């Protein structure tokens, strides 16, 4: 990753000299790009990408090497790497590339799963915890007296850039705070402090309004106050305010409407409207620019309906339309209007957010969509994101519904629970949220809009290979690196080099001054510690391995134990299992090879190390070591014992006192076993290039018998058993296949038991000749993803029963494959895919079907990403396609959104 500055001296068109100078060190880059504004973008080969500002042009006193200086054969120039001097890091772009392994579980008990991914290569590796949600940064937290129940931000003038006041309402008082360098209480704002506030805001150009249970207070710019008192003993129950209009509902369901006139006076409309039921919530949209008023008022009533009431002077307070709701609306929040002024959002008490389209002319509600947000009633608040309005919906989790890069996003916030919120804008925080959470006032800022996952990263030392999670919240993982030093070897090598330096100096001469200098240099060399994630690790050469087993808590990143293996020992696989002979204890098996060469693959020695798990995976205690002949690449617990692959041989081992005891063996697989899974009596083992082999363990005569295999070669990298007949297989060329046993597959032929003593098909199994079974599994689904797959998990991402197949790729993608529930759904999506294929949306001119059928014909898998591109088509084309499918474009968009949120996010 060293960057050099090259200067070419030219004489007309001829280059006479090249001068080379060390500039800085950045992560190893696949590509670099210099921007004219003086920035350097480094697209890293593996790991996060960086944006640097070019602070200096390298015109310092770094040694320059010139082509004019003669160099002897075998000699070279040396430079000293140093921290960044010419570049300043400005931003970091997260990248998961490469994902080596992934586990999905809800260890944090957050109601939706977290993804634990092992990413990266070399010293820049990490364990990343991916959560669905927006990252929030807490800018300020302050305690409030008593228990606040609402908060608003108010500008004093309509053209002010930042908010002036934070108004906090308590049970029997209102506190006004000014926003500036410090947050201070303000007593002369004009707001009434002795009453709780229902709503407050900025009116007209320079006036303020406060609605409280007993009335409305209109504060003019010159501090004149106009008050309107609620009639008789009635109190104001709900209200809605925008820049020119105020609508209130008195207890009992009577609507009163106020509008601001040209003189800045708030005038009450002469008539009041009696609604047939109690008003639960009200909402007014923003006044469209250039107009006098917002034409519609949305009123949610306790009879489970929402009504649109006109505010046009011609038919003021006349009802326009009505929509029945599946549950009562919630009145706890603030606003219901959302971006674009044509959407109405309503939070319901059953935790559902309902979105409906309002016709701008007639006020009719149509195209309702619902989304389940959480277990608590949904409260809505208006905030600003990227300059346009967004809705913050608070339930058991807080969600933000916003527009980003012309797409709608409904994403949860990765933050604790909030009670009330409002948009916030100040010099330090241009677009934030001020919120109340358990008697504290918090100011939050939103980061990284538009991303689906937020990542928490914990660094690792070597390339991670496998991860196992334990219910206690601990995890064990192995890191293995080729061409690397272990810590011990590194220190040893350093000392050796330092010793050589001293000996060299001693041999050259014995001038005492020089000897002192050399001693100092050697000491400096020994103490020098260039951080490996920045400068890379020293490379000893091919065939040298470094490996560790790490026990850590993935949520906090705390490492409980590191077991360092010797130089040239490489851990390949791990397995957490319980044995029938000792069911109270849990054991960790680690498959380790010594002196492995990669190509051609050969192994100097291999062992199975057994560790006893102490407590809830707090610690591992070494038990014993068992020598095996070849690399133990795959392991899996099986019926109280463990299945271990040793090269191409699959064995069942049991726990012994001194070592693992070999119980059963099969040599059925032709090359090298990469993965093994078990389901009841059935075992599925994947060969490195010959796809999967189905075996049955016959306990009566202790044999593993192959009864079915695949007819096509597949270079399997990962395996997931879907059920006892089907297995999903990912391969290194980037295909996902679902292989299923034919319905008439027989595990075991009763007649065939004889001196062959083996199941049907094993007639061919004599010494691995042909090695083929007569029963073949069928590839039910095949799909070319485009990137080599590193893990496949059958898991559920959202709370509930819906399982999907999650895959991760070496290039850093995370994707899901979801099963379609009905023939109708399948037909719809298949036709939608056909239409989108004919639109030729590919930038590179690829034919979609041809790409997805790159290695095997695309069968029974529909490309969901392509279908979702329907939302990006021009409206005319959308209409065309929708008509062919007998639907409207919004129905199709809704269907696409529904199926996505049913399984994931």
């Amino acid at each position, binding site marked *: 990753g060293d960057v050099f500055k090259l200067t070419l001296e030219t004489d007309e068109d001829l280059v006479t000299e090249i001068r080379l100078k060390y500039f800085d060190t950045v992560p190893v880059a696949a590509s670099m790009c210099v921007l004219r504004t003086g920035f350097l973008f480094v697209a890293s*080969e*593996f790991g996060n990408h960086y944006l640097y500002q070019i602070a200096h042009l390298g015109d310092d006193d770094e040694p320059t090497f010139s082509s004019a200086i003669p160099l002897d054969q075998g000699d070279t120039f040396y430079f000293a790497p140093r921290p960044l001097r010419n570049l300043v890091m400005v931003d970091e772009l997260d990248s998961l590339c*490469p994902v080596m392994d992934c586990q999905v579980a809800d260890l944090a008990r957050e109601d939706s799963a977290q993804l634990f991914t092992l990413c990266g290569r070399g010293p820049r590796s990490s364990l990343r915890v991916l959560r669905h949600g927006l990252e929030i940064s807490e800018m300020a937290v302050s305690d409030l007296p008593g228990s606040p129940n609402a908060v608003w931000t108010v500008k004093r003038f309509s053209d002010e850039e930042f908010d002036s006041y934070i108004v906090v309402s308590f049970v029997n008082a209102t506190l006004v705070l000014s926003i500036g360098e410090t947050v201070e209480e303000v007593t002369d704002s004009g707001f009434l402090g002795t009453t709780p506030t229902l709503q407050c805001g900025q009116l007209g150009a320079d006036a303020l309004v406060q609605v409280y249970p007993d009335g409305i207070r209109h504060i003019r710019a010159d501090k004149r106050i106009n008050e309107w008192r609620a009639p008789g003993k009635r109190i104001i129950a709900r209200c809605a305010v925008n820049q020119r209009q105020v609508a209130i509902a008195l207890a009992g369901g009577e609507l009163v409407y106020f509008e601001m006139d040209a003189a800045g006076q708030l005038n009450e409309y002469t008539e009041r409207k009696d609604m047939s039921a109690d008003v639960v919530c009200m909402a007014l949209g923003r006044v469209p620019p250039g107009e006098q008023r917002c034409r519609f008022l949305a009123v949610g009533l306790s009879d489970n309906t929402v009504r649109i009431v006109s505010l046009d002077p011609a038919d003021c307070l006349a009802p326009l339309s009505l929509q029945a709701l599946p549950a009562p609306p919630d009145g706890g929040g603030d606003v219901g209007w959302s971006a674009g002024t044509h959407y109405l959002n309503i939070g319901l008490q059953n935790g559902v957010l309902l979105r409906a389209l309002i016709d701008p002319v007639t006020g009719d509600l149509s195209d309702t969509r619902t989304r389940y947000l959480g277990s608590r009633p949904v409260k809505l608040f208006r905030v600003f994101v990227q300059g346009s309005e967004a809705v913050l919906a608070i339930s058991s989790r807080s969600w933000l519904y916003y527009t980003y890069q012309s797409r709608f996003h409904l994403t949860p916030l990765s933050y604790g629970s909030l009670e009330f919120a409002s948009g916030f804008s100040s010099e330090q925080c241009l677009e934030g949220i001020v919120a109340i959470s358990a008697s504290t006032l918090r100011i939050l800022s939103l980061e990284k809009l538009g991303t689906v996952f937020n990542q928490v990263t914990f660094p690792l030392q070597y*390339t991670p290979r496998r991860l196992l999670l334990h219910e206690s919240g601990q995890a064990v993982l192995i890191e293995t690196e*080729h061409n*690397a030093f272990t810590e011990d070897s590194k220190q040893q090598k350093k000392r050796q080099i330092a010793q050589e330096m001293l000996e060299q100096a001693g041999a050259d001469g014995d001038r005492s001054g020089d000897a002192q200098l050399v001693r100092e240099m050697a000491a400096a060399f020994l103490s020098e510690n260039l951080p490996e994630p920045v400068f890379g690790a020293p490379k000893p050469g091919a065939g040298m391995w470094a490996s560790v087993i790490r026990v850590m808590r993935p949520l906090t990143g705390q490492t409980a134990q590191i077991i360092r293996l010797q130089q040239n020992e490489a851990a390949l696989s791990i397995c957490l299992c319980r044995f029938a002979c000792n069911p109270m204890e849990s054991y960790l098996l680690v498959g380790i090879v010594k002196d492995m060469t990669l190509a051609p693959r050969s192994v100097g020695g291999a062992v199975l190390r057994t560790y006893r798990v102490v407590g809830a995976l707090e610690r591992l205690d070494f038990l014993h070591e068992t020598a095996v002949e070849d690399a133990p690449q795959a392991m899996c617990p099986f019926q109280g014992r463990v299945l271990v692959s040793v090269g191409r041989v699959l064995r069942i081992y049991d726990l012994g006192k001194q070592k693992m005891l070999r119980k059963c063996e099969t040599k059925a697989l032709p090359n090298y076993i990469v993965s093994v899974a078990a389901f009841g009596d059935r075992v599925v083992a994947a060969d490195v290039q010959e796809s999967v082999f189905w075996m049955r363990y016959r306990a009566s005569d202790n044999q593993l018998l192959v009864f079915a295999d695949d007819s096509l070669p597949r270079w399997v990298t990962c395996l997931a058993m879907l059920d006892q007949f089907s297995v999903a297989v990912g391969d290194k060329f*980037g295909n996902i296949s679902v292989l299923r046993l034919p319905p008439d597959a027989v595990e075991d032929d009763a007649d065939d038991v004889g001196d062959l003593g083996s199941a049907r098909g094993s007639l061919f199994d004599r010494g691995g000749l042909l090695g083929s079974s007569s029963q073949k599994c069928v590839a039910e689904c095949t799909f070319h993803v485009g*990137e080599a797959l590193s893990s496949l998990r059958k898991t559920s991402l959202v709370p509930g029963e819906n399982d999907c197949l999650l895959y991760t790729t070496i*290039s850093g993608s995370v994707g899901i494959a979801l099963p379609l529930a009905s023939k109708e759904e399948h037909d719809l999506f298949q036709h939608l895919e056909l239409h989108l294929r004919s639109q030729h949306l590919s930038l590179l001119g690829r034919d979609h079907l041809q790409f997805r059928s790159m290695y095997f014909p695309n069968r029974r898998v529909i490309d969901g990403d392509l279908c979702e591109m329907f939302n990006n088509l021009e409206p005319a084309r959308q209409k065309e396609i929708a008509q062919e499918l007998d639907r409207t474009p919004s129905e199709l968009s809704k269907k696409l959104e529904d199926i996505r949120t049913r399984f994931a996010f």
Partner: protein
Amino acid sequence: AISVMGERFNVHTQLEHLQAKYVGTGHADTNKWEWLTNQHRDTCASVQGHPDLLNMIAIAENESRARVRFNLMEKMLQPCGPPPEKTEV
């Protein structure tokens, strides 16, 4: 098939034309060395062309992708060693 143009285009030149157009085309007298060399070269080129195959080798060997590409390119020169000596018939 013999071309209409006549005796000029015999099978041998057609085959050479095919071999120029589609590298690796064999014929009845293709020997093992030639056949294997073409396979090795195809594999090296394929690994360099497919990003994920290159990534897998780079991660396994702990080398940068550019170094892996360079090594593969060098290997393409004579992947199976020099051609076997032609025995005079």
